[in-house]
């Protein structure tokens, strides 16, 4: 009887007072995922953010504003804990019950709205400031005396802030690379392999911009094809590999043509935050049916060998 009592107590303790919650999922969502601002010195703006707990555990969160710089040429961010780069901009929350940096609870399934306020002092230098609004969880698990790794999750949303008195900050670009992938200077491609372009654009101005433009492919038989550039942000003093778009889908900058033959011209043209041909570059290449020719050659050789073998056998 005593044994059953102990077992019952142990069962109740196990069910109602679990020692660990480590197998439960942790999920966070943030909206908007990006904020782009061009603002005058002396002005203030606000933006509402939504942070959602989509996991299975109640969370304790804190917030921070950190600086970032590009980590690669594909839009990745490298967080810089030192916020000196963001001086003298001032960030805060307008919520009545929550300040930036203050701890708050976020129960499972709930969304916390925060109103971010950005103040730009009158004396702020006219340049770009790249920041991330970052929310982070506190480690949760009760490890129960076992060797273990706890997890902590941070989720952020980048802010691209360009301070300018005129609203038209100095923008300048250069085409770092416009070439066919896997192709040397004298470009000869196979007719059955659709060409794919590598577009790398450098921002050498003072403000981020989006290249708006296209790649036009034109052949000697007047075949034409147009690929629209994806309007991706290029930050000041950085280079970005630009992708293309088709029917609202992000695609690589690759021709959709199944067969090309003869000499071709590919022309890249774009403007900065504006459709124009301010920046242009043209490359030429030749498409020939190598694989088909090679296949035919092999076939001819094999047939020749068979024929000669038959002649030898007959002799």
């Amino acid at each position, binding site marked *: 009887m005593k044994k059953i009592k102990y077992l019952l107590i142990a069962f109740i303790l196990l069910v109602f007072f679990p020692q660990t919650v*480590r197998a439960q999922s942790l999920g966070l969502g943030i*909206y908007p*995922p990006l904020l782009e*601002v061009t603002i005058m010195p002396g002005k203030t703006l606000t933006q509402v953010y939504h942070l959602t707990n989509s996991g299975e555990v109640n969370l304790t969160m804190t917030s921070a504003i950190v600086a970032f710089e590009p980590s690669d040429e594909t839009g*990745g961010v490298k967080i810089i804990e030192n916020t000196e780069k963001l001086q003298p901009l001032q960030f805060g929350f307008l919520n009545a*019950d929550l300040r930036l940096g203050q701890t708050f609870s976020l129960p499972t399934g709930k969304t916390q709205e925060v109103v971010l306020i950005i103040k730009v002092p009158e004396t702020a230098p006219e340049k770009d400031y790249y920041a991330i609004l970052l929310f982070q969880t506190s480690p949760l698990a009760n490890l129960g005396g*076992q060797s273990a790794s706890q*997890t*902590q999750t941070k989720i952020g949303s980048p802010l691209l802030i360009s301070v300018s008195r005129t*609203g038209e900050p100095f923008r300048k670009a250069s085409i770092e690379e416009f070439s066919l992938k896997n192709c040397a200077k004298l470009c000869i491609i196979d007719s059955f392999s659709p060409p794919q372009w590598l577009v790398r654009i450098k921002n050498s101005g003072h403000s981020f911009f989006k290249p708006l433009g296209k790649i036009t492919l034109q052949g000697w038989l007047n075949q034409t094809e147009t690929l629209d550039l994806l309007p991706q942000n290029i930050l000041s003093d950085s280079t970005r590999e630009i992708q293309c778009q088709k029917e609202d889908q992000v695609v690589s900058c690759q021709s959709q043509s199944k067969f090309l033959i003869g000499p071709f011209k590919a022309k890249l043209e774009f403007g900065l935050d504006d459709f124009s041909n301010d920046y242009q570059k043209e490359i030429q290449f030749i498409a020939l049916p190598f694989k088909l020719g090679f296949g035919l050659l092999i076939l001819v050789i094999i047939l020749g060998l068979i024929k000669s073998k038959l002649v030898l056998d007959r002799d």
Partner: protein
Amino acid sequence: MKIKFCSFFVFLFFLLTGPVWAVHPMESDNFKIDWPNLNMGAGLPSSDNYGLGVTTGQTAPGLYEGYGSTGFKVRAGFQYIHSLIPFTFTIDKIAVDFGVLTVGVGTTDTIGLTVSCGSAGGYTITAHENNPLTSSAASTIDDTTCDADDCDEVDAGTWTLSTTYGFGYGMSGTDVPGEFSGGKYKQYADLSLPTPETPQAVMTGSNAGRNKQATMTLKVNVSGLQAAGVYENIIIFIATPTY
């Protein structure tokens, strides 16, 4: 006569008045709004959550024209993605329990990572550790350098020998860096070093998408010289959309 006059007046009214558009560009010398969507408010709004002064407007209003009149232009979200779905990151457990560590027997466990880009164009997930696995007596299990002493927080290497000791991780699944192919492992970037190491990407995607999944395999193997104790650390994930 009066009826005739009234009919004529009504006829003229319909004939001469132009169409009334619900959305029409508004402009003056100082500003131009192509697609006006004006929101107005009065008084001082307040609730349990907010103490707003005079802020009115809407979430993600798109690009404001009329820089001179407002002093700013703002765009929330991506121009080429028409979605209000949040960027979401999920891990399937909040801690990895290695249990009792046995000498020369590598212990592994996994964390499932899921990313839904939602309204974001792409994303990066990085991982690092606050410090190597450390006991309450300040003993540490060093980060692995793999079988050929060729892996660190940047480069991955093969780790299959039971005589290779340390702590590390491998990745498999969608949008995982190619260096992990073949079941390779690397160290976590260590934040406790005098010059903290840079967190490394464990998942990177340049296209929008839902439920992109990957698995992180954590591995620890200790030698007979390792001091007894309970070893712990914190693995920190940072999820950010691309810009």
